[in-house]
């Protein structure tokens, strides 16, 4: 489904005239329908891997080969921006800890819109959006209000609802449970299990190792580049 080969990413900060290495020779593989967990210390580059797959970051070298429905086997680093826009809409989902919304868009509109974007009919989109909001325990009285006023947990659940409702083939989870209480975590876990059962491929970063237990097929451990030098 997804194979990363010798991925290298560094950040050059011009005003400091410095280059900071973030990823060095990362190679990994996720099979269709598999769940890969990425663990490691803060700053070891976990999110950088996910953001490179999603092309929010542009790595300097390596390949990320994705088996796309639309394009067949495609190297995400060579893909055009238009191809990435399409893949983000239809095949690759991303859930982060942060919610970024249009001003004055209600929770229901937000989730509905993400379905309309992929061509679902209006009536069906609204029905499915409501179902997703209900599933994540976002009370009906919140549906027609603006997410800016939501609590952290509510925002996060809304974020997850938006990504999951489209049922992407590959879902990237960047610490989606970071600020959730136990009950919400259970909800998220249920959804992830359901997605997995449907055959969705998942790559996730979780601080909560307990949460990952029994969920991941594989675990990839990241090490800070500076720690590696000490070991060597």
């Amino acid at each position, binding site marked *: 489904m997804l194979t990363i080969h010798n991925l290298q990413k560094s*950040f*050059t*900060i*011009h*005003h400091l005239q410095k280059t900071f290495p973030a990823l060095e020779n990362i190679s990994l593989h996720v099979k269709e329908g598999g769940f890969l967990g990425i663990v490691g210390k803060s700053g070891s580059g976990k999110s950088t891997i996910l*953001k490179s797959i999603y*092309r*929010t*970051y*542009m790595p300097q070298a390596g390949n990320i080969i994705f088996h796309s429905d*639309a*394009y067949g086997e495609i190297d995400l680093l060579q893909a055009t*921006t*238009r191809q*990435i*826009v399409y893949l983000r809409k239809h095949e690759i989902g991303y859930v982060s800890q942060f919610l*970024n919304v*249009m*001003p*004055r868009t209600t929770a229901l509109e937000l989730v509905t*819109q993400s379905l*309309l974007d992929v061509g679902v009919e209006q009536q069906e989109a609204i029905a499915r959006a409501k179902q997703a909001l209900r599933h994540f325990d976002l009370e009906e009285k919140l549906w027609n209000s603006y997410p800016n006023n939501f609590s952290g947990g509510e925002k996060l659940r809304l974020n997850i609802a938006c990504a999951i409702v489209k049922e992407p083939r590959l879902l990237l989870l960047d610490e989606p449970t970071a600020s959730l209480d136990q009950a919400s975590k259970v909800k998220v876990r249920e959804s992830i299990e359901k997605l997995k059962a449907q055959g969705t491929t998942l790559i996730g970063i979780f601080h909560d190792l307990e949460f990952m237990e029994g969920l991941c097929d594989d675990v990839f451990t990241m090490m800070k580049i500076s720690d590696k030098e000490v070991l060597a």
Partner: protein
Amino acid sequence: MMQEQPVLSIRQLSKQYGDGCTHCQHEDMKLEKNFCPVCKTVYACRSVSFDLYRGEILGIVGESGSGKSTLMKSLYFDETVTSGEGYLVDYENGHNNIFTESSQMKRHIRNTILGMVYQNPMLGLKMDFSSMSNIAEKQIAAGNRHVRQMEERSLSLLQHVKIPVHRSKEAPKNFSGGMQQRVQIAKAMSNNPPILLLDEVTTGLDLSVQADVLDLIKSIQRELNISMIVVSHDLAVIRMLADRTIVMLNGEIIEHGLTDQVLEDPQHEYTQQLVYSLL
């Protein structure tokens, strides 16, 4: 999947004010930003190339004087380009360079394929004419002669941009800045153009009115699948609207990519500065 064809392709578009001299026409010319200190020529756009696709919003950011508005005016034929090529899939199937067409053909393209919304409503509207007449003017230019039809179309557009019906016969000079901007958008849309050019449309509007205009732009894109080029120096506006973004500096494109990539992993020194300035 088939290779997607752009609705608009711009290649090597350049626009200069002044004739240039031996100093600035030299290959490794030394300009002060985009200005030749010897002959005072301003190089407003330098070899700008990009593609715009059906239904997408393309963002253009850059500081004042980076050439954004000159680029938009060149695309709308308000300015004559110095050199370069442009192809529209909706005009002669994209075979003819629009910049070398006759002025009559340029007018035709402008009236049927393009819509423009200026930062300054004074440029886009006749302030003393009624809003309805302003919108009708664009339709007449596009060849419509059916008065009742134009009236109906104008009214429905004004409703779409949330101008109350009872003010439709009023002149835009009586309106607030946000309303004027919405009338301009209605006018630009009146000939059903496949491409809309929006130059700093939310600049100078207060936050709630700005949100209205952004809402309107987004809904137009969704419902009508119109392609848009949105010029703004406001990164937040670009982040809300555009999937892909171009960064301009001193008349050149210095960076382009997915909007979140440009904002989170900027490569060029100037883009980094721009992003660090984001509140």
